[in-house]
């Protein structure tokens, strides 16, 4: 164990905490931007610090390919290689393999795939994934799990869940740096509460430094999504961080935080920036649209970031999709927005005004009161009264005990 997790404030299930990692003292809830290949698209480390990024995610699959984990290790680890003074998290490499490679196949041994470099058959085992992550040196490393999309049904889900539990033991055994790097287990089990429960219990028994909720953010309906998150957060230990992988949209982050999750990651803010879309409290702003060509307001008049304080929508409009600078400026703004959201979640919980924050957030995003039903249901379970934001109250009777 190489972390400390101290809860500083609560509102029902939601919690604000201080997460002390080897390289940085973080405050949760927090969003982690994805720096796939050892960099966040176009932003320097100084800009990332200014924006308030605390933990950055690196993709093991990409880094193992180039420049290779051995090289990173030889040069002193990823922190030194990137010159990033704060915290890093690496994923196991499994997800990219399954999603990026056509011929990936999962067996008990590991994930077999065709090397994208020379087509040779290769095998990523739990042991190999941990070794690669040990060499990269991130503060948090992820176990190799057998991840299936929630849109799949049938016995494959059960098989994947049990295999994930078998693999966690192999990951633990292979982990050479438990005093410097924290190995998180990942809860699988699809949308099946029984399977999820078995997986949670199995992982908790291993007494890991933290836990992730995996297998979501892959196209399942929102109603199923929040129920799985709610079930897992209810069952995972209070005193350890909970990380919902692949989330995401600001609305999803607010809901998951209300349900008791602490950490999130997603490519969405930076990816959508490259398509000319800015994140704003009302939702999104598409800078590519012709309407923006003459709009001389900033992207978000309330935003304090360098981009909103200096540039108009009209100018950014003429840059987006044509000049790299457009992507850079929008990425800067979008990440600033996400980190501000993280800071607001943390401080509103600590200062005892979390329900007010949630209401204001929903009112701004849904000014007509058309808050989606899944959000209303989730907030009810979270014990947050959002009746002031909804045009009509909706009642959901199904509150099974696992929630």
């Amino acid at each position, binding site marked *: 164990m190489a972390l400390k997790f101290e809860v500083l404030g609560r509102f029902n299930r939601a919690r604000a905490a201080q997460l002390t990692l080897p390289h940085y003292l973080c405050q949760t809830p927090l969003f982690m931007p994805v720096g796939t*290949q*050892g960099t966040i698209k176009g932003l320097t480390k100084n800009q990332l610090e200014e924006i308030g990024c605390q933990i950055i995610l690196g993709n093991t699959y990409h880094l193992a390919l180039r420049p290779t984990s051995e090289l990173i290790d030889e040069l002193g680890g990823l922190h030194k290689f990137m010159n990033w003074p704060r915290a890093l998290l690496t994923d196991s490499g499994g997800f990219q393999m399954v999603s990026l490679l056509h011929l990936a196949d999962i067996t008990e041994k590991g994930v077999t795939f065709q090397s994208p470099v020379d087509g040779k058959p290769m095998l990523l085992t739990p042991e190999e994934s941990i070794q690669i992550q040990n060499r990269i040196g991130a503060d948090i490393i992820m176990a190799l799990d057998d991840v299936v999309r929630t849109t799949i049904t049938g016995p494959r889900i059960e098989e994947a869940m049990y295999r994930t539990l078998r693999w966690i033991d192999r990951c633990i055994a292979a982990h050479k740096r438990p005093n410097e790097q924290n190995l998180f287990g990942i809860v699988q089990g699809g949308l099946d509460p029984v399977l999820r429960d078995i997986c949670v219990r199995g992982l908790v028994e291993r007494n890991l430094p933290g836990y992730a909720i995996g297998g979501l953010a892959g196209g399942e309906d929102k109603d199923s999504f929040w129920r799985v998150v709610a079930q897992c957060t209810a069952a995972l230990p209070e005193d350890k961080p909970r990380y919902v992988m692949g989330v995401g949209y600001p609305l999803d982050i607010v809901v998951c935080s209300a349900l008791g999750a602490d950490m999130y990651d997603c490519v969405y803010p930076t990816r959508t920036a490259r398509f000319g879309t800015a994140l704003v409290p009302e939702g999104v702003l598409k800078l590519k649209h012709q309407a923006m060509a003459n709009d001389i307001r900033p992207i978000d008049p309330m935003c304090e970031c360098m981009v909103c304080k200096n540039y108009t929508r009209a100018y950014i409009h*003429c840059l987006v999709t044509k000049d790299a600078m457009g992507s850079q400026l929008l990425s800067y703004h979008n990440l600033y927005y996400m980190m501000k959201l993280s800071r607001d979640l943390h401080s509103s919980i600590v200062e005892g005004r979390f329900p007010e924050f949630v209401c204001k957030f929903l009112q701004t995003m849904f000014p007509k009161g058309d808050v989606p039903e899944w959000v209303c249901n989730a907030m009810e379970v979270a014990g947050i009264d959002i009746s002031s934001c909804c045009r009509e109250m909706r009642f959901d009777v199904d509150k099974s005990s696992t929630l």
Partner: protein
Amino acid sequence: MKFAVKKGWSNGRARSGVLQLGSCPFPIQTPALLLTTRKGLPPFTSPDLLTSSLPSPDSHLLQFSPLHFLEGISPKTISNIGGLHQMLSLHQHIFAAVPRDSIIALPEHDSTNKYGASFQTPGGRLLIKPAEYVELVSSMKPDFWVTLADEVPAWVSNKRNRTSVDRTLRWLDDCLSLNKESTTIFGSIVGGSSIEERHRCAQEVAQRNVSGYWIGGFGLGESMDERAALLTAVTDNLPEDMPRHVSGLGLPEEVLQGVAAGIDLFDSTYVYHLTLGGFALTFPLERNKGENADYQLSDSGGDGMKINLKATVYRKDTSPIVESCICFTCQNHTKAYLNHLFNVHEMLAQTLLEIHNTHHYLGFFCSIRKAIEEGKFEQFRRNFVESRRDRLFAAASSA
């Protein structure tokens, strides 16, 4: 605008000067470099990095082409925002409007006609008339702007060349008369590769009521050897106490040639092209003759002037691009990291490299100014050219 040549500090035609322009509170020492921009901002360096990581006031001179703004944002909107400085939020920077830039607004002499100048842009071919040009420029309110010119490459016929001078002079007069607000205008001088035409154009422009001179038609295919005489044919006919600005002279040797002919301001896409290709400037800025002898070259993949960061030899190199360089990139990152970024096609590679290359090239201009002030410019120039030759020779023989 105020410009003064520092008396007593000339070496032949090379001169040292000071430029003071509205927006920038600090005087700019010349000879100086104007940084290339796309729509007013450097191609890869975001504005916060421009102000925080590059030397001041050297990096405050920015060249832009008004043509960049023709698609995407209207002159009226730019006016509503309040002009270029407000739109880009760079209030202490100096913006120079030059229609031609060697990246995305290339003069198309074949399509230029008596109505206007033609340019090849990513959006297609554009014909811009003096009236449209003046309207564009007045919405942007740059610190100074150059009049519309008909630039032709070195190989056109004498007739075509003469026409280009006649047109450029006519458009200069058009621009002057259309210029309602009293703005700072540089008169454009062309003339291709004819000494007589260069001479004629310069003399004519010198008679107009302008604040400085822009010398065009270079960097369009003429050889360096023929250029020297053409440059002096122009500068010898211009008043001494007015600034001279040239476009298209990018390489260090070309800059030195321009300085030797009496040029004060240079805009160049050298840094941009280097950055795109992954090349980092490394030539020594200090003029010690001794260090040329034992310059390490072996498998550096470079030529003594620059290195190619994509070369595999840098995969594990944990040193900065230039050991003594104080730019953000050299202070924070290694060649190994940059090599990786280039290999995986990450945008950050160009941002970091543009910062270093700009910083280094601005340092080169600083060395030039120092040499002029010490009365040693010709020697500086000679040393530079010779040591480059030595390094190239050594690189070739060790290959």
